[in-house]
């Protein structure tokens, strides 16, 4: 099992550690509900250094990215980031990712930790145009500083005006006394904030300075458990749960990052699926009664017939009710539709709702 540059720091903070995607990661510190609230109300810090980073450079960089990704990367300008996914040839998704454009011949792809090897092989296999690829995953650390007070709390660490960095844009600048840090206004919580990319050797220094600067704002370390409840309240897909090699971006509600303004792997079939409408859709639902949906639970109709499956579920700390994502037939995918979630022996009634669950 791999450690991040900060694993020993988490252990010293008494974090509960778990193996995740091959890394020794903090799942919680003081408890998932308290950590969740810290991010919703003030500011918290996640070590998500397990994420993978690939640098794609050269005159054919954009050509390769356009071929493998569903969103239209030609719309990117320097300093802008884009959420995208990599479709496979069979209607599924290899991974979802963020693409950062530094200049027209330099891009950073940030991928899921569990898929680093698969993604690298997939992209390499399609790199017939010979773009230059480098896997920086083992060299870079990633801190997500998230919450409504993130900009104010971190402002003393940099000359860049943090409140002026627009959502899904980034700056490369000195941060916490370290040169060339990527300060990106992105995240996976829906509460605003930044993601900070730095070299492993600088991670501890930045971590310490971040906690120093944030002390007056009640900054706290946040584990993967709260990362999951926060993203689920926003209805953000998690690869391996809600999307995978067998789910299409159209089914998953990722039509907004699937642009047919260009050709990409499997774009013809996905375009046809979009035009005809998918047979099933990923929806958000809330339980009408007390209970908690979990990944893998059946979604059933009123006669008990299985019509779908829960892909993610939890007790929402903000809404204090059971929420989940799952695939259902298109006929019952509209908000307001009634479905049932098989929670052990009971089929609990649930209502399909518009995402996000948490509206801030």
């Amino acid at each position, binding site marked *: 099992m791999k450690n991040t540059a900060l694993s020993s720091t988490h252990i010293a903070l008494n974090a509960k550690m778990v193996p995740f995607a091959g890394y020794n990661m903090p799942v919680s510190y003081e408890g*998932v509900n308290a950590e969740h609230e810290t991010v919703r109300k003030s500011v918290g810090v996640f070590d998500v250094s397990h994420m993978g980073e690939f640098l794609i450079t050269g005159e054919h960089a954009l050509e390769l990215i356009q071929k493998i990704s569903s969103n239209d990367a030609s719309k990117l300008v320097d300093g802008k980031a884009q959420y995208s996914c990599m479709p496979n040839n069979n209607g599924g998704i290899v991974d979802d990712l963020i693409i950062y454009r530094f200049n027209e011949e330099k891009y950073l792809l940030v991928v899921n930790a569990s898929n680093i090897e698969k993604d690298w092989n997939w992209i390499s296999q399609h790199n017939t145009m010979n773009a230059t690829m480098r896997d920086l995953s083992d060299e870079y650390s990633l801190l997500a500083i998230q919450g409504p007070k993130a900009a104010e709390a971190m402002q003393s660490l940099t000359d860049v005006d943090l409140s002026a960095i627009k959502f899904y844009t980034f700056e490369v600048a000195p941060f916490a006394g370290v040169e060339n840090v990527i300060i990106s206004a992105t995240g996976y919580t829906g509460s605003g904030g930044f993601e900070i990319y730095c070299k492993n050797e600088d991670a501890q220094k930045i971590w310490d300075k971040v906690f120093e600067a944030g002390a007056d704002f009640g900054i706290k370390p946040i584990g993967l458990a709260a990362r999951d409840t926060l993203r689920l309240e926003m209805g953000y897909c998690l690869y391996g749960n809600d999307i995978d090699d067998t789910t299409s971006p159209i089914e998953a509600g990722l039509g907004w990052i699937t642009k047919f303004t260009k050709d990409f792997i499997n774009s013809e079939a996905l375009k046809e699926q979009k035009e005809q409408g998918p047979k099933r859709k990923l929806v958000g639902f809330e339980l009408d009664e007390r209970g908690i949906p979990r990944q893998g639970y059946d979604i059933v109709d009123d006669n008990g017939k299985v019509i779908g499956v829960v892909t993610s579920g939890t007790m929402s700390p903000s809404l204090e009710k059971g929420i989940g994502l799952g695939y259902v037939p298109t006929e019952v995918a509209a908000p307001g539709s009634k479905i049932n979630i098989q929670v052990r022996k009971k089929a609990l009634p649930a209502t399909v709702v518009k995402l996000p669950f948490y509206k801030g």
Partner: protein
Amino acid sequence: MKIPKDLKYTNDHEWVKIEGDVATVGITDFAQGELGDIVYVEVETVDETLEREEVFGTVEAVKTVSDLFAPLSGEIIEFNESLEDEPEKVNTDPYGEGWMVKIRFSDASEVDDLLSAEEYTEVVEG
């Protein structure tokens, strides 16, 4: 992590307090720590007579769900209904206000099969 000396324990990380023919049952400090924030304790077996090891309820944490097993055969005579509104008591006071059910046990010899605090400490610390 607390493991009070005066209680009995199971390999399923439950504690048992024997008073006459009634056993009060909860989950241990170790168990609540492993589960994390508990949001729901479901017990729908009150007045039912269960065999030892049968499921008497479930405990739901934010991240996971776990079955609760009857440590002794007998009738479930009471559920700690205060947990309906304050399930977090299981986290904050697992051996006190976080108790879950009372069982009128039917076979006193089963009590001898429960673990002592020392034996349970070995289960937890391996």
